[in-house]
């Protein structure tokens, strides 16, 4: 049903969404924690900066990324010193772009989730003798799991729908940077509506299934606890 190039684009899209969401979560969790622990001008500035990708058109973000990732930029020269090739028109470049693009979709749910862990509960646990690791493992991790989960869902879904930035920096290279959204664009451009229909429908169905499944997963444990509680 699907041509090999289309399978490739589908797999690449999913890989990109998984990888960039996972990395984002890992890298921004400490930052979101810090942001959730109070109010200050410094925090507000960082918050504003992190929300920028939400309001800027992807073309602006894409433009700066083109400059940043081009082989002559200071960033690429720095990378070359570390033995890494310039990221323009490569999958790794797309990962970086997706991470920037989805940044607010991860930081904000995390920040909210972390913020709901009350300061007095943390202090009480410390006073009872809990060390840093015990706080994280037994208090912060279980209490913020739903927030981590919804951050991941949002980032994943958002990356699936990425187009503008890819258009600017991706280069539409099959197997490297040709995502499903790009392929659909190409088909529509060449008036090949049958393939465009198929791919669009696929993306629609796939996105819906993934989101539905993730929401089911997220609701599961809470419901179990609720049921347990009702029984008692």
């Amino acid at each position: 049903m699907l041509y090999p190039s289309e399978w490739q684009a589908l797999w690449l899209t999913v890989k990109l969404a998984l990888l960039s969401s996972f990395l984002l979560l890992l890298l921004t969790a400490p930052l979101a924690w810090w942001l959730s622990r109070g109010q200050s001008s410094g925090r507000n500035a960082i918050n504003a900066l992190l929300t920028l990708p939400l309001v800027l058109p992807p073309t602006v973000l894409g433009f700066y990324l083109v400059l940043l990732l081009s082989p002559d930029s200071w960033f690429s020269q720095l990378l070359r010193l570390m033995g890494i090739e310039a990221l323009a028109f490569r999958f790794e470049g797309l990962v970086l772009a997706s991470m920037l693009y989805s940044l607010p979709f991860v930081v904000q749910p995390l920040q909210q989730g972390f913020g709901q862990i009350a300061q007095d509960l943390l202090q009480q646990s410390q006073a009872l003798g809990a060390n840093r690791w015990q706080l994280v493992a037994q208090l912060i991790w279980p209490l913020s799991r739903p927030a981590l989960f919804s951050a991941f869902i949002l980032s994943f879904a958002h990356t699936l729908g990425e187009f503008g930035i890819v258009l600017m920096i991706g280069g539409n290279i099959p197997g490297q940077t040709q995502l499903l959204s790009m392929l659909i664009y190409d088909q529509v451009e060449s008036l090949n509506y049958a393939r465009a229909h198929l791919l669009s429908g696929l993306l629609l169905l796939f996105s819906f299934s993934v989101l539905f499944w993730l929401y089911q997963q997220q609701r599961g444990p809470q419901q179990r606890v609720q049921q347990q509680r009702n029984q008692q």
Partner: protein
Amino acid sequence: MSLRLKLHWTTCNFHLQLELELNNHWIGIYGQSGSGKTSMLKAIAGLLPTATEHCSFNDELWQQGSFGQPLSKRKALYLAPEAVLMPHKTALQQLELASSWSKSTADIKQIIQDFELEQLLTLYPSQLSSGQQQKLALAQALIAKPRLLLLDEALAHLDHQQKAAVLKKLKLYQQQQGFMLLWVSHQMEDLCLYCEEIIWLKQGQLQRQQQLSSQQSNQLFYAI
């Protein structure tokens, strides 16, 4: 057993200025709402570092200037009027965690029995009444074997009978473990029954500090 404390704290409508030394085991704190009782307990527990000029316990420095002994080393437990419990853990899990965190040797089973928590062990905090939550928080504190226990109306949601039973057990544990207890209550009757010393606060100032013998406490009770 001695606690020294010097507080200085000014906010827009509240001025706290306290300097005192406490040597007894069971100390009552009395005063109208807004007189600084909660602030005093929180300062001792290390939760109000900016208000605390000096705090030391048994000649161990807890707070002075920019130095603050970490909460986990003080073993001073502050129990708020509304018990602070972990929402995702059952009563038994809370007690077990307190035991493992504090590396305590206290007998969990005995404490559960003493505070009549057997029926609650599988329940989450949201399923407990506020009085039950207070009992659980107190049991959790005793498991951790504190050096200083700070009760801020922490028994106020218990009915009269339960409170008497809990206080009796608390007295027992206090004698066993030897911690110092500071107890904020609006019930002068209770304070006089149990405390060796009572402190009055008024508008952030020390109004009166008095040792009580058992005879005096009766007189005091009728005087008020």
